[in-house]
């Protein structure tokens, strides 16, 4: 699965980081390769990930429509060509897992993907079985990451996931939430469970995670996956008619989408953001945002204030 790219990139990253003195930084950022997106290491495992991934909620639920399946495969092709790795899906997302499987098969891209899926069932005994069915749809042997979706029956599933990680049936495990929901419970789980990832909503207008979850993730060495970076498109749609401020050029952002992603990625606790898209140009644009320079504190505040005010 993702071993090859992560190792190659890790070596490259170590070389680059050492050369540039980046290892001295509290949170090291580096490009994995000259033209690829920025990557970040996951503290708990030997994994380095490109900081922009690909979500599949709604966008990849295309049923059996051949034209739309091929369109999603095109998006995936552009994603992998641009150096992307993490694709996130769930049994809850209709036919999205099947679409990812179709794309991976068509593109022969099983080695390139960092496969992130979820357990989503109230039935405590069904976790393992559901993950097997999901892996079949993805057409992969095992997942790189399995998350408890929206904390559904999380206690029971956490036992299953820990056992699966110990067996090598999955590489890393985590939990997800969104829309700023149940942050107290998420915090408790992050505190008490040996998880590798937490997935949550974070963007210039949804900043609750900054209070406790993001600092805690840093402290505990838990990777953070950011969902709903564009509020499911509502943010980019709202901003579409507004001119991009000149100062966006200071961080090389050429669109609101890139400015938002750069805001997200500039938080040191964030491992990657997973915008979803149906468009090849958007996936390229999103990956291109995973690049230096990223905004400093002052610019972060300016981005958030500007977007909130519009």
């Amino acid at each position, binding site marked *: 699965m993702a071993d090859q790219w992560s190792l190659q990139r890790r070596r490259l990253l170590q070389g680059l980081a050492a050369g540039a003195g980046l290892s001295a930084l509290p949170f090291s950022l580096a490009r994995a390769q000259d033209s690829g997106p920025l990557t970040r290491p996951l503290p708990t495992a030997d994994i380095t990930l490109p900081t922009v991934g690909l979500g599949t909620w*709604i*966008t990849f*639920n*295309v*049923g*059996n*429509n051949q*034209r*739309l399946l091929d369109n999603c495969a095109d998006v995936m092709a552009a994603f992998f060509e641009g150096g992307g790795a993490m694709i996130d899906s769930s049994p*809850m*997302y*209709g*036919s999205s897992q*099947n679409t990812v499987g179709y794309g991976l098969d068509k593109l022969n891209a099983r080695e390139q993907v960092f496969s992130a899926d979820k357990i989503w069932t109230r039935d405590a005994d069904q976790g393992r079985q559901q993950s097997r069915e999901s892996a079949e749809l993805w057409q992969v042997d095992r997942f790189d990451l399995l998350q408890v979706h929206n904390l559904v029956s999380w206690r029971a599933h956490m036992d299953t996931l820990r056992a699966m990680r110990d067996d090598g049936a999955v590489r890393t495990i985590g939990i997800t939430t969104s*829309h*700023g*929901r149940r942050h107290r419970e998420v915090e408790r789980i992050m505190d008490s469970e040996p998880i590798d990832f937490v997935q949550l909503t974070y963007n210039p207008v949804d900043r609750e995670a900054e209070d406790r979850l993001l600092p805690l993730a840093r402290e505990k060495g838990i990777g953070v996956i950011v969902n709903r970076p564009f509020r*499911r498109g*509502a943010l980019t749609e709202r901003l579409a008619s507004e001119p991009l401020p000149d100062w966006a050029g200071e961080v090389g952002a050429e669109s609101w989408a890139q400015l938002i992603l750069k805001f997200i990625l500039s938080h040191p606790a964030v491992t990657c953001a997973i915008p979803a898209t*149906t468009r090849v140009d958007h996936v390229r644009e999103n990956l291109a945002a995973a690049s230096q320079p990223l905004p400093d504190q002052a610019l972060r505040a300016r981005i958030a204030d500007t977007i909130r005010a519009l």
Partner: protein
Amino acid sequence: MDALLSYHPRDFLLFSPRVYWALVTGNNESWWPLAILAPLAGVLVVWLIARRGSQGRRLALASAGALWWFVTWSFLWQQYRAINWAVDWAIPALVILGALLLVFAMTTGPVTACRPHRYRIGLMLVIWGTLIHPLGFLLDDRRMQAADTWLLFPDPLALTTLGIALTTLAGWRLALALPVPLLWSMTGGATLLGLESPIGWAMLIAAGIAVAGWLPLTQSQRGTC
């Protein structure tokens, strides 16, 4: 409550308008030329009901029953289910509804009494479901090829079924026939609103009107209305 308020109607949908209307277009192509025959079949059902003969009523009921089986199999089971797992909960109820309507078609006797408002509302719903609902494509970004007609899709079929039931059934039979198409009209309407299709409002209003048709708002009159 706060958590619930943080949802937008479209957050409850698993799929986009682009995908849903592509599915509708594909289904219309697969069953061509049923899509263009549907308004004609609608006119026929209106005529059957307006004639008030018991054979016509039975035929209208039987066609609604058979169509629920056909639509459940050809659209919901074969296609829609792939993008919306929640429909699994509805499928058994729709199969039972089809059976119920077929049994009623075989067993109901001639109308001996009816309530005028119920009959008029029923007839209006049949016209709405068969002839007006498909024009919803004019209100959003859809092309005509994505028009949903009562011979192929559950939303207009639910409205038509409500109308057929109100004009042809009474008493416990009517009470048994209404809940499923009513529920479908409400969830279908909400789904269309989630897809940003204004025809969803019409479905919700139609469901409300069907309930008004069911209530005993006018005196029952002997003979046909």
